[in-house]
């Protein structure tokens, strides 16, 4: 079936055919024909944001919480450049988004025309792929291909730059087809011999550990189900990265908590001491490995990843398996069952005994107070009061993000949206808007820092306009707390520019946006105030005034290895903990 229509109409037609129901965007001269086409139809709904960065984060939240591709429409020049942070964020965290940018007419490209920028040049390093469409004939194919590339293999952002004359031009639209790209064919099935080898190693292991990551979430809910099955079958302990939280249920005894720089004592010690590491959909990020030469020195390493470039990038592994998590996990479960394999019972007993010793260290413990709200306590209460609801959590970046990861017990995948790889302050509010749009009836909370949330505060208008009752739970410590923590550790407590001066009154700010503001300053009032926040069917800014001096522990300081974690209640002075060389690092 093919139809004649304008380029602008093709864009809408292609979005609809790709199952896009919502597109986040901001208009401008170079996309007016597409906006005109949006105006004249009802298949695709446009969500007007207040800044193009917000549009991309909203699309990311939408994508991560649904498993679908998020979609964005922005104008040329400043519209496109404003989207760059969002694109980079999506690239770092492997989030599928398609961003359509307007461009000056083809004959003006390269002429420094009004609102011209080299969009494909600027976005080349921060997209999985990008296109400049130079003829109406290629537009339908490019649009469909963009969605295919964004969603398949290792997901990521794709930009389609469409000059204005192409939007006006008439051509023949064609529907998406099963298409085989010549060069681009991600591998889904893992090599069966390698998987067999992995299962044999698992059966023989004495101190095994699953180390899982965002790849499980990318792979889809089935991967989580299979992971849970395999973990139960084997009886092995499991830890996960920040990006993988929720893929395995946090309430289960086999769960050791998050690992890495702010991971638990038991997760990091188990990584250090294990004899078999089974890495599935994680990428040995530097927040995980710590000092490389001391990273899990005695283990045999299995690595399952869909992207060959993730394998042997930082850490040399023994059994690389290239494939999709769900596919490989399915094979692993089948082989384990078929072989009638049993884990080494005696060794596992010893291993768990050791792990329980580490766990008994209670590394997330903090000294609570009845006078001042401790940020950890605030998250714990938020968790207790929302866990039985249909809840989604997003975050900004900083201490509050780490406390959310440590203290909010995620039970399911796709419930946790955070900026991990790029660490983009200002991610959480627009992401929450995207999540809420996809789950209108659910409770969506952005666990925020007072500094981060101001970076995209303008999106409150978006939430109010589109009746998206997101809850912004601000852990207000009046500091860029994560920066303050590093200054305390590395720079002699000289808190250069990390005090967030001249903060707005968040309650009044909420009201100025026609939203609801709530302030809470006492631990005793917290439950009631959170209850009130949940009850309100409108956007809320919750100003939770917390202890200004709290630090986030455990912490593996720069220059240290997994078994050299700092704990909050450890006697060691933090100033002594970082070596001169460590100060050079971030």
């Amino acid at each position: 079936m093919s139809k004649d229509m304008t380029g602008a109409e093709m864009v809408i037609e292609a979005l609809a055919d790709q199952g896009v129901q919502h597109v986040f965007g901001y208009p401008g001269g170079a996309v007016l024909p597409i906006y005109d086409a949006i105006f004249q139809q009802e298949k695709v709904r446009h969500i007007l944001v207040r800044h193009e960065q917000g549009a991309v984060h909203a699309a990311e939240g939408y994508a991560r919480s649904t498993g679908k591709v998020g979609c964005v429409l922005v104008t040329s020049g400043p519209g496109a450049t404003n989207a760059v942070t969002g694109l980079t964020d999506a690239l770092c965290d492997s989030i599928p988004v398609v961003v359509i940018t307007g461009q000056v007419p083809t004959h003006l490209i390269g002429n420094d025309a009004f609102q011209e920028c080299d969009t494909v040049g600027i976005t080349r390093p921060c997209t999985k792929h990008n296109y400049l469409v130079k003829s109406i004939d290629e537009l339908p194919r490019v649009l469909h291909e963009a969605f295919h590339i964004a969603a398949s293999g290792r997901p990521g952002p794709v930009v389609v730059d469409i000059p204005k004359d192409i939007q006006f031009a008439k051509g023949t639209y064609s529907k998406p087809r099963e298409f085989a790209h010549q060069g681009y064919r991600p591998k889904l099935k893992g090599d069966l011999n390698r998987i067999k080898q992995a299962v044999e190693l698992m059966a023989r292991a004495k101190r095994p550990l699953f180390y899982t990551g965002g790849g499980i979430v990318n792979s889809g809910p089935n991967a989580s189900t299979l992971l849970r099955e395999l973990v139960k079958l084997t009886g092995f302990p499991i830890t996960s990265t920040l990006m993988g939280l929720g893929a395995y249920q946090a309430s289960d005894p086999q769960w050791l908590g998050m690992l890495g720089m702010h991971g638990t004592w038991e997760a990091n010690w188990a990584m250090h001491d294990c004899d078999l590491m089974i890495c599935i959909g994680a990428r040995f990020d530097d927040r995980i490995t710590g000092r490389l030469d001391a990273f899990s020195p005695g283990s045999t390493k299995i690595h399952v990843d869909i992207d060959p470039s993730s394998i042997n990038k930082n850490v040399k592994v023994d059994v690389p398996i290239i494939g999709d998590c769900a596919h490989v996990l399915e094979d692993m479960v089948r082989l384990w069952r078929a072989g009638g394999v049993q884990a080494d019972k005696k060794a596992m007993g010893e291993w768990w005994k050791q792990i329980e010793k580490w766990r008994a260290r209670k590394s997330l413990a903090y000294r609570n107070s009845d006078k001042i709200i401790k940020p950890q306590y605030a998250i714990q209460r938020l968790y207790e009061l929302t866990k039985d609801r249909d809840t989604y959590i997003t975050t900004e970046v900083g201490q509050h993000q780490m406390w959310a990861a440590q203290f909010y017990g995620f039970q399911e995948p796709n419930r946790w949206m955070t900026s991990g790889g790029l660490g983009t302050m200002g991610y959480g509010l627009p992401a929450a808007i995207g999540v809420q749009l996809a789950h209108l009836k659910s409770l969506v909370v952005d666990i925020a820092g007072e500094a981060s949330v101001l970076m995209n505060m303008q999106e409150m208008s978006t939430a109010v306009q589109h009746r998206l009752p997101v809850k912004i739970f601000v852990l207000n410590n009046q500091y860029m707390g994560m920066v303050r923590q590093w200054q305390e550790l590395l720079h002699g407590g000289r808190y250069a520019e990390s005090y967030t001066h001249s903060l707005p009154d968040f309650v009044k700010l909420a009201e100025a946006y026609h939203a609801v503001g709530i302030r809470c300053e006492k631990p005793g009032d917290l439950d009631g105030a959170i209850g009130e926040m949940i009850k309100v069917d409108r956007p809320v800014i919750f100003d939770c005034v917390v202890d200004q001096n709290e630090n986030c522990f455990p912490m593996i300081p720069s220059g240290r290895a997994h078994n050299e974690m700092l704990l909050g209640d450890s006697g060691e002075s933090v100033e002594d903990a970082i070596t001169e060389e460590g100060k050079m690092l971030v």
Partner: protein
Amino acid sequence: MSSTSHYPAAPTAQGIETRTLSVIVDNEPGVLARVIGLFSGRGYNIDSLTVSETEHQKHLSRITIVTRGTPMVIEQIKNQLERLVPVHRVVDMTVSGPAIQRELAMVKVAGKGEPRVEALRLADAFRARVIDAGTESFIFEITGASEKIESFINLMLPLGLVEVSRTGIVAISRGPEGM
């Protein structure tokens, strides 16, 4: 302690190797920028790079890149190249079996008298062809392995070498198979 980094330590333990990679790509706008951008963005070296369309019907080009790095970095370079959507295949010509590597250079030499005669004599020994000649200058065309071209240029240096234009390396594997 050799390294106290939260970032991967520079892999000095492994030796640096030189490799020639052949890359088959879709001949579309921007493809070379993607490849070069990958190298500059990730801090990889390019010692030599050549590119030209090789299969007009299929719109395929072949890029030959000579690069340097530790084995782990070389593996990354190959994987990162393969990740680019328009890239079809990457073959490491240095390890995939015996391969032939060639380069072409045009060498301009100016001079009179004895040096001029000497330059011609050497060109003959190197099988360099004269492709342009005047009373005061020659242009030689020479093809061969890079080392051969290198030594020819060195010999021309005292004989009135004016300038050199080189193509960079192209490579192809021996035997009946293609890549």
